[in-house]
């Protein structure tokens, strides 16, 4: 089962992060969270922080999938889990990129 988890974990993390950031956007817009931090819009800072955290977690997970102690013994599982690891990282970077450029609650 650990091998199956190794294959599924990175896209699962992406799905969790994607849903969490979308939920955060909902909270920000639904509750009218505003204000500034260091001259920057608080909603933008929160969303970019969440985006950064998502990428960081995906990168850490990918590194773990390459680590000899955590990687699968089976060459096939190692290969597939690393591809899905990269898929999770790319998906996090690409699908959450709008936090950096689009208006948040319009």
């Amino acid at each position, binding site marked *: *089962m*650990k*091998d*199956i988890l190794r*294959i*599924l974990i990175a*896209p*699962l993390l*992406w*799905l969790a992060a*994607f*849903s969490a*950031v*979308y*939920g955060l*956007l*909902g*909270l920000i*817009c*639904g*509750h009218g969270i505003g204000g500034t931090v260091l001259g920057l819009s608080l909603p933008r800072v929160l*969303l970019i922080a969440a985006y950064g955290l998502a990428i960081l977690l995906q990168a850490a997970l990918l590194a773990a999938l390459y680590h000899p102690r955590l990687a699968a013994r*089976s*060459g*096939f*599982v190692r*290969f*597939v889990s690393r*591809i*899905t690891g990269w*898929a999770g990282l*790319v*998906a996090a970077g*690409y*699908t*959450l*990129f*709008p*936090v950096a450029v*689009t*208006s*948040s*609650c*319009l």
Partner: protein
Amino acid sequence: MNALERHRRLRAIWASEPGMRGWLSTVNHNDLGRMFLLTAFVFFGIGGLLAMLIRAQLATPHSAFAGPQIYNQIFTMHGTIMMFLFAIPCFEGLAIYLLPKILGTRDLAFPRLTAYGYWCYVFGGVMLLVAMLLGIAPDAGWFIYPPLSGAIHSPGINTDFWLIGITFVEISAIAAAVEITVSVLKYRAPGMALDKMPIFAWYALITALMILTGFPPLILGSVLLELERAFGLPFFQAELGGDSLLWQHLFWLFGHPEVYIIFLPAAGVISTVLPVMCRTTLLGYGWIVAAAVALAFLSFGLWVHHMFTTGIPHMGLAFFSAASTLVAVPTAVQIFAWIGTMWKGRPELHLPMLHILGFFCTFVIGGLTGVMVAVVPFDWQAHDTAFITAHLHYVLFGGFVFPILAGVYYWLPHVTGQRRVFRLGEVAFALVFLGFHVTFLAMHWVGLMGQRRRIPTYAPEDGWTAINLISSVGSFVLAIGLAMILIDVVLHVLIAARGRRNPWRAGTLEWAMMTPPPAYTFASLPQVDSRTPLADDPHLAVRLARGEGYLATPREGARETLCVDIASGRPDMHVVYPANTRLPVTMSALTGVFFLSLLVKFYWTVPLALAGVAILACKWVWGNGRREDPEPVQVREGITLANAATARRSPGWWGTLLLLSADATFFGALLFGFAFLWTVAPGWPPPEWFAGAMVMAGIGGFGALIGPAAMRQAIRANRRGDTALPGIGLALVGALAVAAACAAVMVQTPAPMGHAYGATLLVLGAYGLFHAGLGALMAGFLAARVLRGFTSRVRQAEFSIVSLWIDYLSVIGLLVLLAAYLPGFLS
């Protein structure tokens, strides 16, 4: 024992009862797979006839063929039948028929569950058909949006048929998904490690996992909408704290993954059939597995692209637009791997290959228009036009029907043991291909010219007349083509021209047996060392028939197989299956009484039906056990395995874990709904917060915490050889305490019909109460098993299963209490 003697003895053990009784009592995957497929294709025919009626209506302007009310029912039932009663059951049928054979085992993990799922599907489907014949079929479109589908705008019983009928049918999908997942993970031939699994098994596994997580949000949505319609709980009424957008979220949380749930099995068929047609092996096996996994997960992040026009903030639109374009990448990886496979091999244009080529042309166009509608500004223009209808047909017909027809022609010689005599199929393919493209290319065009989807008629001055006529002519050509395929298949079955055993010279295990396949599939189970064992050893079928594999000697009339370690494929358990029984059909009939009672609002039979189902479920499980410790069984010379009843992680444990995953998704979707309404819906905060007695929260919390600890104590005591009854009793008390606390939430919740907040708490409380009742029932059942000697230090599997349920109850019990008490406490 010679091969013939082995065959006779195995057949006596595995055969279904003769005649009609056999239909009702069979639990064999061969029978049930064929029954599933046959029923699914009957529904496909009915759905197709409805499509013809739609095209007849739209062929000319101001058509009086059907009035708007009937027309609404026709297009709603067309979509509903094709999505829920054809596509998903067709996958289930194919997987049920094929998986044990392709995995090198004798049956699926839970044969009676297969039968139960089949009968739920039949009864639920018949319920919808009866509604259609009576002229009271659902009429609010296949995604049945409120407020149109709410009690105010759709007061009749039509929508209730959809909500209750589809929920009934979905039991079948969940049952099949549990079955398929456990089977692929645990029921494989010895030696079949993950990297040696046939590619279809990977696709089936991924699809089944998607069903387990994709269907529960729709079941929840259906429950909530039915509660609103029947009892006035206002989940979707904006003036009472509800929000109709909640339905769209719940529906599309299911609905978009559903597209891939339909496509991925078809991709499994392509990946299996294409290399055989090209006389080569599949290019990029690992890449395809990874792409299918990525596709499955990405598909859960696309649901809002069906809601681009609902006023969601631009950033939200951009998230889902990005995800929707990204999903093209893993799809393209698979397409390119298939093109590479064709390039590598020597394609032979047999009939299955023609349908695969039809798939390529059609699905790629559907995928590309999918990328078009993933782009928000374009979607705003095309939304709810015939362009979208055309796009989804390119994806679903191209991505499912063509591959399935390829599969039908590929595996038909396996099902019948015969060969095709007439060449009708080739002409039929040409008509289907031409008819489809004429119909739906025209539909793209008329959609871009502004024709809305689902309109019953239009005026000549709209300028759509000629295109609609062309589209309708194309659809009738398509229908003639499909009818010819039906005739071709019937002729194949009726004209008994004996075929060769492996007519395609394929390398996978389903061809390593006689055809049509015997009920036991393999006379002895193969040892697998590659993805194409039959290509490595063309005489494998004969060797297995001779008994040169595992479990070659039939024992004590038992239906035997073995389980393997998930990763390595090393044999790790010996399993004995249950025999034929009418329990599944009876239990599904009683389940049907439950749903029917809700439908006709005859509520006093609801508890009776539920009690009946509970009694039959107990009978179902009670028959599994044994009162003496099973001896390890020699499955092959030098290899002895313990019985599954002695395992901590038995097949039942895996099945429970997966069922609970689906259950957890349902609960997660309910919490999401609560959070969504609170955050987004108008009319919040509610006029009154829940202010229940804290003592009840304390009792519930105590019960939730004590249950898992007590079960662990019971497990330890059982392992030591001491009595487990005190621990089980304490777990039972814990479950009852949670039940009391959840009942208190239900009773004390403020005005459930006055505001969505109270309604949500009522449902949360009911969910907790239901699971507490289930936990108590299981603990009581386990106590009875202990008292009657069905458990021992060795026979411990049932403890682990009940422990899982009690753990789950503990987690959801605490969350229900937290969701109920915390907001009021903070306010």
